[in-house]
């Protein structure tokens, strides 16, 4: 992957030799940005299709099947519809904040992907503190929802914003502590090094020693991305549509895209932290390793990610929405004590080198 990229960069320098290095760099950065955002948006679009299809199948329906063969062009129909819809501004709403909110929700969702490695040496930047970067930028996304709720000048969005603020802030703590355990085991906050630490077959992946933390991480990830059964931020039956009641057209689409890109990000993070990232599960096995050698890094990562994305939909199709106070109780009274205890357990085990994994 990386050698391909290098030759591509050289090609750019060759094709436009009259430009000095500075502008060529800008062009390369732009191309990198597009190469990041475009597949993400296509993935997000097909995620919505997969969601409708999978949930339909679980409810004994067929799901969308009219646009294109088995409905495969449905996402494009949705996008075109969204683009041509009018953006309505509520009376007396603060228009500047009203327009800023979807951007604030969408940009951090994409910005996180800068540090997420998709294969051996296949990333946009290799930050030494990439995990901290993910946490930091991830929290900025909350502002989009808060500002959306406030700027709409309407009661349901405000209620949704209040709920989401409390929810995301609480669960961020839990996710932070879970990540601390991973960092302690890996001895690094660099995502590349964390993945490298899980090299050599499925039994070296961190989900085995950190199994309870993996569960806690996944449930918190559901909450962080406002997905069912923790989607009280939207809560269609209670507060109509939460923060995006007043949004329409592309403004709403940006929130929607931010939510789905965050989902994909959380799935990627779960794979990178607990499931060996781009490493094949058969590494080190005598026969299977050579059999699956042709599969590229990226494909292993995508296969593992799609399982987690499927899990999102599976969970949504299965469970009813939690009551708001029950979600809070789950966070503060169950997950937080559990993670703190587990931090001490992991600290002891790593320091005293107990068990086969540490």
């Amino acid at each position, binding site marked *: 992957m990386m050698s391909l990229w290098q030759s591509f960069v050289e090609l750019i320098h060759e094709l436009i030799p009259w430009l000095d290095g500075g502008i060529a760099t800008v062009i390369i950065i732009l191309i990198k940005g597009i190469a990041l955002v475009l597949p993400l948006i296509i993935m997000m679009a097909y995620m919505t299709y997969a969601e409708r299809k999978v949930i339909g*199948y679980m409810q*004994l329906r067929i799901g969308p099947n009219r646009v294109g063969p088995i409905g495969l062009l449905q996402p494009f129909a949705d996008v075109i519809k969204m683009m041509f819809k009018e953006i309505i501004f509520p009376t007396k709403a603060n228009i500047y904040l009203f327009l800023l909110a979807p951007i604030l929700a969408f940009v951090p969702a994409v910005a996180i992907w800068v540090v997420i490695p998709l294969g051996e040496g296949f990333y946009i930047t290799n930050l030494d503190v990439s995990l901290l970067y993910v946490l930091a930028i991830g929290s900025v996304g909350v502002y989009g929802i808060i500002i959306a709720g406030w700027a709409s000048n309407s009661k349901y969005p405000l209620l949704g914003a209040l709920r989401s603020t409390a929810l995301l802030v609480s669960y961020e703590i839990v996710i932070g502590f879970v990540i601390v355990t991973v960092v302690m085991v890996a001895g690094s906050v660099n995502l590349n090094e964390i993945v490298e630490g899980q090299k050599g077959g499925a039994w070296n992946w961190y989900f085995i020693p950190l199994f309870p933390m993996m569960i806690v991480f996944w449930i918190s990830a559901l909450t962080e991305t406002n997905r069912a059964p923790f989607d009280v931020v939207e809560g269609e039956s209670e507060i109509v549509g939460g923060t995006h009641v007043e949004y329409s057209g592309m403004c709403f689409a940006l929130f929607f895209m931010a939510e789905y890109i965050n989902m994909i990000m959380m799935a990627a993070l779960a794979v990178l932290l607990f499931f060996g990232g781009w490493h094949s599960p058969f590494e080190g096995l005598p026969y299977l390793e050579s059999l699956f050698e042709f599969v590229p890094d990226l494909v292993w990562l995508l296969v593992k990610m799609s399982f987690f994305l499927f899990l999102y939909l599976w969970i949504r199709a299965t469970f009813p929405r939690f009551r708001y106070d029950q979600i809070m109780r789950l966070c503060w009274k169950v997950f937080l004590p559990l993670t703190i205890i587990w931090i001490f357990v992991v600290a002891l085990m790593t320091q005293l080198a107990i068990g086969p994994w540490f």
Partner: protein
Amino acid sequence: MFDKLIKIFKDFTLSELLLGMSVTAKELVNTKITVQFPEERTPISPRFRGIHALRRYPNGEERCIACKLCEAVCPANAITIESEMRDDGTRRTTQYDIDLFKCIYCGFCEEACPVDAIVETQIFDYAFESREGSVLTKERLLEIGDENKKLIDKTKLEDSKYR
């Protein structure tokens, strides 16, 4: 005490959540029961009461004799009939209107008719583009009867042995 321990064990192993998820996973691969409506249709009883139609005798003569029994029996007053003597001396309707906004599709008109002129067909997917379109005139009713003669004859024959 023991029950409480069992509950804590169940909560922490997520056993009940996994049970729920196994149910949805099973349904994921089950046969789907969706009927693709315009292409596929569910079977309809011959006694189904859809849009109305006026029938004719095999020689092309309209059956209706303007006895106004249907107008009298109609619980929603949806039927309006005007009649006069035709040139050959028979009593015929000059106006036979059914207001579909009023009609409750009870089928009493069909039951009341002594000559099986007014019937309700199996057709249920119809629409009109103006408010006036809701009133079925005599011409329209006869037209529906002519267009769907085969269907009406078949369903009425199927239903006749139970009447």
